[in-house]
């Protein structure tokens, strides 16, 4: 017992490796939020009138809303007027037309993060949209994607270039009034990614967005919209990091997915925002609304997330299974350490006939952290023959952390079938002793055991990222053996 705890504690104590700050000149708004700020933001982005109206409507609505307090997390009250709502690296032209025009400082930053953007060094087979604070600074592989008919660009560009698509789908899955943070995002979102895959197209490569928070006192409000037309397929991955700072920073994103008939969207997240230090100082507040609408029949939406960062995570990637025979999946690994808090899970809303959903959640708690799974499985009256399988496993490292599960089921259809399994286990002394008896370092043993625990989720990640995710867990667990 004593052994494991000591080892675990030592393991957790590794420094966050993406904690550097890029020294770059930026245009940053003064802190504060009002209609003028929103108008300025919209103007800087050269948005059409309808977009500004949309934002202002959301803002007025938001003013009436209350911050949710039902999650199993605690954090100091956020003063929304002390946050800056826009920060972007200064640049000569409006939008960099090619990578050559992107500030070398920025390219260097992404290189340091392991995301080379330059043509020659680009990640093979993965197109990247790089979002730095409030703006998208570069998008790779645009041309080959365009050839396939796939639109992959920043949401700001999409608002100008594809207004009809944006108008049709923006807010269609997560309306501005959905919840407090979604409302705020709708009013002030600054950038994010837009993906459109036309009918019958299988997107020829992985798409990804790398979100980087750099500026201090700035919130990041990204907005992502992915539309998969009939019989199309797309796999998308997002990664996130931020500098180490003593102050908390807010990240409130909204992601909307729309899958039409026979379409498939696979959305993966590797979230590694700065988690705060070992005393719980600093770190990102990650308050995110992610939802996919499986509108079409036989459509499928899969969420896979590996959440290791952030001081507080509040996130429930969900699926609304409207189309008959549509499928929703949620595979999650959430690791908390030190003083991190995570309240995460999913909602599977079964509306169509024979819809099915799978939830595999793996929560790992170490240090003094708190890790909660919160899930809702709902069957509407029309969900004839619908079914859900939920498996919630918690793994505790040490005995000062907490794991909680809050599974909710609501059924308005008698034919719906729900299966639920839940386990809680510890990295046991016996397992540690076995590994060490075979000559394996305690650190390596813990990370091996934790990786084993997460295997079912990791195998859902795109190959390139599964390895990354494993390494990330290892880093996040540093100092957790004691």
């Amino acid at each position, binding site marked *: *017992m*004593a*052994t494991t705890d000591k080892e675990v504690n030592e393991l957790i104590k590794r420094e966050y490796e993406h904690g550097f700050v890029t020294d770059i000149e930026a245009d940053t708004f003064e802190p504060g939020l009002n209609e003028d700020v929103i108008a300025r933001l919209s103007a800087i982005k050269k948005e059409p009138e309808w977009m500004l109206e949309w934002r202002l409507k959301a803002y007025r609505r938001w003013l009436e809303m209350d911050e949710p307090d039902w999650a199993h997390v605690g954090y100091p009250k956020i003063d929304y007027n002390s946050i800056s709502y826009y920060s972007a690296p200064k640049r000569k032209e409006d939008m960099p037309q090619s990578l050559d025009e992107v500030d070398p400082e920025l390219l260097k930053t992404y290189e340091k993060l392991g995301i080379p953007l330059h043509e020659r060094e680009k990640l093979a087979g993965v197109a990247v949209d790089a979002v730095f604070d409030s703006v998208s600074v570069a998008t790779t592989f645009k041309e080959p994607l365009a050839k396939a008919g796939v639109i992959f660009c920043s949401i700001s560009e999409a608002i100008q270039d594809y207004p009809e698509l944006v108008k049709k789908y923006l807010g269609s899955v997560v309306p501005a009034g959905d919840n407090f943070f979604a409302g705020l995002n709708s009013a002030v979102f600054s950038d994010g990614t837009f993906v459109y895959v036309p009918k019958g197209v299988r997107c020829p490569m992985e798409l990804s967005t790398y979100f980087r928070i750099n500026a201090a006192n700035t919130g990041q409000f990204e907005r992502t919209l992915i539309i998969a037309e009939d019989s199309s397929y797309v796999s998308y991955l997002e990664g996130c990091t931020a500098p180490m700072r003593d102050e908390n920073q807010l990240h409130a994103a909204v992601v909307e997915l729309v899958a039409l008939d026979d379409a498939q969207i696979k959305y993966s997240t590797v979230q590694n925002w700065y988690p705060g230090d070992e005393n719980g100082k600093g770190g990102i507040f990650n308050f995110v609304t992610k939802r996919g609408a499986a509108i079409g029949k036989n459509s499928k939406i899969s969420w896979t997330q590996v959440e290791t960062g952030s001081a507080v995570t509040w996130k429930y990637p969900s699926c609304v299974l409207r189309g008959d025979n549509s499928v929703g999946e949620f595979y999650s690994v959430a690791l908390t350490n030190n003083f991190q808090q995570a309240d995460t899970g999913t909602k599977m809303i079964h509306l169509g006939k024979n819809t099915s959903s799978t939830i595999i959640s793996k929560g790992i708690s170490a240090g003094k952290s708190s890790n909660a799974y919160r899930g809702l499985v709902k069957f509407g009256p029309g969900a004839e023959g619908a079914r859900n399988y939920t498996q919630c496993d918690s793994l505790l490292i040490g005995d000062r952390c907490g794991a909680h599960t809050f599974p909710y089921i609501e059924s308005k259809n008698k034919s719906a079938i729900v299966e639920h399994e839940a386990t809680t286990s510890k990295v*046991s*002394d*016996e*397992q540690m*002793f*076995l*590994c*060490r*008896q*075979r*000559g*394996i*370092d*305690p650190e*390596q043993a813990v990370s*091996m*055991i934790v*990786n*084993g*625990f*997460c*295997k*079912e989720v990791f195998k859902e990640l795109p190959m390139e990222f599964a390895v990354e995710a494993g390494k990330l867990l290892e880093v996040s667990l540093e100092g957790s053996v004691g």
Partner: protein
Amino acid sequence: MLSIKNLHASVEGEEILKGINLEIKAGEVHAIMGPNGSGKSTLSQVLAGNETFEVTQGEISLNGENLLDLETEERAREGIFLAFQYPVEIPGVSNLQFLRTAVNAMRTHRGEPEMNAAEFMKLAKEVSKQVDLDPAFLKRGVNEGFSGGEKKRNEILQALLLQPKLAILDETDSGLDIDALQVVSKGVNALRAEDRAILMVTHYQRLLNHIVPDHVHVLAGGRIVKSGGRELALELEERGYGWLGVKDEEATPSAAS
């Protein structure tokens, strides 16, 4: 090779080992027998460095080096191997990955290059044949859903892969069917070598027909109460432990400690 002097160990304040003395030379096979609860597994675990047990007195040295100063993993790298009486499961971690990590930890310690996945796969397949374990078991989680006998064969597989200096086998024969006993014995005999010692804990003298020990010891009440040659096991089989003045832990003379 291994020298144990006046070893005392306790768990949760209760003394389990009450002064063990044992010398094992390279090339020798020693068998330890004794009633349930007499401390055989405790001795095995203490040798391997399980911190659940506190060593309160005495010395253990391996080739002159004080083992008590070393952590579990360091002892392992010095060549101590323990085949567990009750092997634990590590769900989701493939046997192959686990074994390769272990083998590479040893190799790194010896300054040898690590084995890559392909090299290791080849080696592991060969060795698994030696213990009659379908190579499919390499892909499964460590001991995950293995039958009792399969777990034991997996332990011997590990011994053969890791090539320890001292192999401690805690009841590796229990729960085996007749064929498996043959297989495991063959495996253990394959381990026998000039520069290696084997310490076997067993309840059954039949194992000793397959693996003929050089010395047999009876552990009772935390002490070695009798040592002898191969014939001692036969005598125990015939007469039980009663004639040695011990039946079970209650019957152990405890005043002396």
